[in-house]
């Protein structure tokens, strides 16, 4: 089986990151994507405003329509040689919620179903509040996988914790076991939000998590269907501020689409940590402390609906 080289991965990842303007148009052409002429403004890490063609934003839908890169049954096998890891730079997050909506679009989730949540955290009275994007941590010692009675949720060799919704009996023990409240349940027949490509032709795989099913558990999957094609998960590419770095621990490289860095150096230089390390779950997601922040926390309340803002009423902002 052909595996993506590190170079390939980083190149595609960087391209998918939308930001580096040079060569994007040419690259889009090679992918068979026609520019629409409609531009979208995005902010780079170093504070530059760049314009990107909207066609690029549809990239995911395009990828989706190509179908799965692997047969559904293969969804239980990890991508050989990989050990996926994510780093979240809390100093860059302003709760733009682009990651949330991109994830919802990717997985056909209605507005109130968020696999990726952005919480407003305040660790103690003295410390300042900060935005905290939280996805599945794909723990190396996953409490959810331990308790599943029917092998419906499993840990793969590439580090991912996935769910097979064809096998799930809906006992919800995994939801109880997950200390981070990551998992969500389909309490009724999942609704398909409007404006998305038709879902009927989609073949289910634990890698795509679509179509969703009533009475089963679901969660953030790190978009392995994208990753298998050498592309980044949707939350990573959607983030205008480069908050999310995704990559491979074996290669010691992560990228946020704009810059590609050594994982070990990033964690060392920016004092990376894992959330609630003392629980012993060994997450595969690292956080960089919310220091040298690019945005004041208040910026995160802009452009939110009243209901979304009401979520944070209990957090003391002073």
């Amino acid at each position, binding site marked *: 089986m052909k595996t993506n080289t590190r170079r390939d991965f980083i190149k595609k990842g960087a391209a998918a990151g939308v930001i580096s303007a040079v060569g994007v148009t040419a690259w889009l052409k090679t992918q068979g994507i026609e520019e629409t002429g409609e531009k979208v403004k995005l902010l780079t890490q170093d504070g530059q405003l760049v314009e990107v063609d909207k066609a690029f934003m549809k990239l995911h839908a395009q990828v989706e329509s190509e179908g799965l890169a692997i047969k559904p049954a293969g969804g239980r096998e990890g991508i050989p040689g990989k050990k996926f890891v994510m780093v979240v730079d809390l100093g860059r997050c302003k709760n733009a919620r682009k990651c949330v909506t991109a994830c919802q679009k990717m997985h056909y989730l209605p507005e109130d179903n968020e696999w990726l949540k952005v919480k407003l955290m305040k660790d103690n009275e003295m410390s300042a509040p900060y935005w905290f994007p939280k996805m599945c941590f794909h723990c190396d010692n996953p409490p959810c996988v331990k308790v599943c009675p029917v092998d419906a949720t499993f840990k793969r060799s590439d580090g991912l914790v996935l769910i097979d919704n064809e096998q*799930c009996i809906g006992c919800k023990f995994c939801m109880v076991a997950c200390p981070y*409240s990551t998992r969500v349940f389909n309490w009724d027949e999942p609704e398909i939000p409007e404006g998305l490509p038709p879902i009927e032709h989609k073949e289910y795989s634990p890698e795509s998590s679509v179509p969703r099913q009533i009475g089963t558990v679901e969660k953030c999957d790190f978009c392995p269907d994208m990753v298998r094609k050498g592309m980044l998960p949707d939350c990573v590419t959607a983030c205008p501020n480069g908050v999310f770095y995704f990559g491979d621990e074996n290669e010691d490289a992560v990228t946020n689409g704009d810059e590609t860095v050594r994982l070990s150096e990033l964690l060392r230089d920016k004092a990376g940590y894992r959330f609630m390390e003392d629980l012993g779950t060994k997450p595969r997601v690292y956080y960089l402390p919310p220091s040298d922040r690019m945005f004041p926390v208040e910026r995160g309340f802009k452009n939110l609906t009243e209901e979304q803002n009401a979520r944070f009423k209990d957090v003391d902002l002073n």
Partner: protein
Amino acid sequence: MSLMSFKEITQQTLADFKPQLEKFTKKDWLWTLSLSAVILWGAYALYRQITQGEIVTGMRDNVVWGLYIANFIFFIGLSYAGAIISAILHLLNVDWGKPIIRMAKLMTIFTVVIGPIFILLCMGRLDRLHHLFLYLRLQSPISWDVIAIATFFVGALLYLYVSVVRDFSILRTSDLKMSKTRKKFYKFFSLGYRNTPKQKKKLMLSLKIIALIMIPTVVVVSSVLSWIFGLTLRPGWHSTIFGPYFVLASIYSGVGVLILLMYYFRKYQHLTKYITIKQFKYMGYLMVILAATYGYFTFSEYFTDWYSSEKWSSELIHKLFSWDEFGGLFLFANLGGIALPLIVMAIPKWRTINAITIVAGVMVLAMWVKRYLIVIPTLETTLLPMQDTRVEYTNYSATWVEWALTFAGIAAFILMFRLASKVMPILPVWANSEIIAKENTIDPKSSAHV
């Protein structure tokens, strides 16, 4: 006093149960129909849940388990209690215990059927039940529970049956008015037992061995039940005391329900001769011992959490102590479930049948509330802030579907008992006859049933 043969004594004892065994009165029909109506209401609720999804319940992403799991712990706890109480009474071989052993065993059988139904109700995909056999993983505490309950079910059935054989053999040869099919039923299930000394010796030894096995089995299975909660990383659950706590809570609430059953059958099937103040007092004493121990466990559990004041435990304790959250229920659970039995039983004048029954009733209710308090507040205490504005996602509130199925469970329990008392004497005739024979200095070994 003229001496009777043992057979005469058994037939005389049986006569006290004849009205129940022979007739199905209008009142019986009324009871059966009303209880069935409640069960049907539950069945309709279940139909709604299956067709529309678990959206019809109050369960949501944070509180993923609700009334159902509380009922599961409650009923399966009664089952374990019935087994261990009857086993201990059997092995102690005390005369006062003999009349109530069968009720305890029947309680075991009925609740081991009803309890697991409630955990099935928690499943989103009942159509995939067979996955438990196809893909069962031994790492999961749910798998342990499936195996534990299945094993226990077989054991409990055997335990009941071995002791019922003797009564079936008495019934078979009695002058009871019965249909041919029924006679055949008794004949078939008495397995040719005639109470010959050899048969009796073997039967009693088997009974003793099963009783002996049931005791550690109950300890294991109720610990396994507790580990569904205790092995998670949740405040209030992740506690080493949970195993013994569940074992004790099971037995304790079981004693309460047994007292209620004693009262019910004593009054409505006129069994005052067999179930006397003595049984109530002794079960009351047992209740006090268990109340004190359970109170100690409870104090130990919450005191540890409160004093060390670790973040999430403190949040949980705060919820249990706040009036606007679970304070009222928590107070009731502890006053009704621990203080009340201790106080009432401490005063000799209050140790009456009525008082003990009322106390047992309140205690059973309190123990049910306690199960609710074990499940819901912990699930409402997430490690990360919930930050969800949907009320139903942050606070659990049971819907009519869940209540309907809860009452259906209780109705099924009562109905099963009523129907069982039509098929077999609700008290073991053979054991009671042996007591009478002993009192009349007749050697029960002297003569067979036939």
